[in-house]
């Protein structure tokens, strides 16, 4: 049976969303699934609206882009407003708690959690917000196991930041309980 999850990570350039997508896809591959990761971004290196997409499937993946997402993450208001209508009606939206979720947004579940603040204040590094978000997404959806996700994170982050990133994952798990 086809089991396919389509994920869209949105925010601004520089938030590490593409890396987040890569890590999710790599975790999925470790578990023997297929995964395709793609992205779209503007010509600027920082800022702008950035999105990374991941499709995880137990079958061959033809079309590599996400049309309607099963899971969507938004870390900026601009990105949320831009992509709000691209969530499936039975999909899950994960947003940073600083954002205003449009009242007419249709999704099965909206999870508003302090991702940016947790990274900045609890861990002390804003740059791990993407990893906190991955932890939260995993906890909500079970798309990959904790073990695979941790292995994928550790194989991608710079040397010397392993403990920091493990903490970021843990804080992400804790945000969804």
């Amino acid at each position: 049976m086809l089991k396919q999850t389509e994920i869209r990570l949105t925010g601004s350039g520089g938030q590490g969303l593409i890396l987040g997508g890569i890590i999710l896809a790599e975790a999925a591959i470790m578990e023997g699934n297929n995964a395709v990761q793609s992205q779209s971004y503007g010509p600027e290196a920082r800022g702008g609206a950035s999105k990374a997409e991941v499709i995880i499937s137990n079958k061959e993946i033809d079309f590599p882009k996400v049309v309607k997402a099963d899971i969507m993450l938004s870390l900026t208001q601009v990105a949320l407003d831009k992509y709000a209508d691209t969530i499936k009606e039975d999909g899950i939206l994960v947003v940073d708690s600083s954002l205003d979720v449009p009242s007419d947004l249709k999704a099965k579940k909206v999870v508003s959690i302090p991702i940016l603040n947790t990274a900045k204040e609890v861990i002390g590094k804003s740059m791990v917000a993407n990893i906190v978000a991955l932890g939260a997404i995993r906890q909500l959806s079970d798309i990959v196991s904790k073990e695979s996700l941790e292995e994928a994170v550790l194989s991608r982050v710079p040397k010397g930041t392993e403990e920091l990133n493990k903490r970021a994952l843990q804080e992400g798990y804790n945000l969804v309980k």
Partner: protein
Amino acid sequence: MMSNKKVRLMQGNEACVEGALAAGMRFYGGYPITPSTEIAEISAEKLPRVGGKFIQMEDEIAGIAAAIGGSLAGLKAMTATSGPGFSLKQENLGYAAIAEIPLVVVNVQRGGPSTGLPTAPAQGDVMQAKWGTHGDHPIIALSPSSVRETFDVTVRAFNLAEKYRTPVVILTDEVVGHMREKIEIPDVNDIEIIDRVKPSDDDNYLPYGVTGDELVPPMAAFGDGHRFHVTGLMHDETGFPSNSSENAEKVLDRLMNKINKNLDDIIEYEEYMLDDAQIVILSYGSTARSAKSAVKQLREQGINAGMFRPITIWPFPEEQVRKLSEKVKSILVAEMNLGQVVLEVERIVKGKCEINHIGKANGEVITPEEIASKAKEVL
């Protein structure tokens, strides 16, 4: 059997470099441009480790010129670019064609014209790949649809360039270049590698001399000790300029015949669910992925759809498309431009079946739903 093949997530542009290295690339000359930059970046990192050379030049023109020089010196050479850079490379592409210099030119297509949409996909350079440089000339262009195929197509591009002493264009696009997919890199020993034929040491070497039915002259490397003159002017077998129309005709015939008499060797394509197809979606590169998905959707709705996907874009799979047109009701060409390959299809089919087109050039991909709904509309 145990396999030491490694499964990993890889980007299309990275697979291009891996394929190039597996094929024996030892020289890269170029100038970075989105969305091809990773090809330069990764080549810069990896070439020195295998004793190769990477050089970033002052612009795209110099990039291809350096690659031509590297190839003349005996190394397998590549350059990569996108839209505006591909325009700049046209003059030297023609130079490589007439001077018969093996060369791989990668064009990761983005939205145009001009600097256009730097980060958005397009397939608007198909005709440019064939006609962008002036004059009649041979060209091979290949278009991969996946990360794994980018690896294979790049190996093939080098093989064809070496075998036929001609430039080969890889026409990929931003989607295939930037997406990451699960890929298993084949074992080096399982990959067929073709090297250019070199002249023997003792003969009187003619760099453009062939004997009998031979189409591809052996190629000496600069520095090997052979006398070797290279020019963009029409030349005789010594490589020195000749204005004789008789010679020009002979040389151009041979240049074109390198391709035209080896179509079976050069042309590759994929057929999907064509046996009982009434409507065939003809597509290539990343758009073919949408086409395949659309075929599956249409089949689920009881519509006999199929897909024909040229992997070799130039020379175009003319014979295959002609045969297809004799047995299907309709061909729908899907491409990220406002109508390029569809012109080729119309020329070939000559009204034997209905032809429709779905094209987009706004920086967005064509979705499977759009193709499926167009197919239903025209059936």
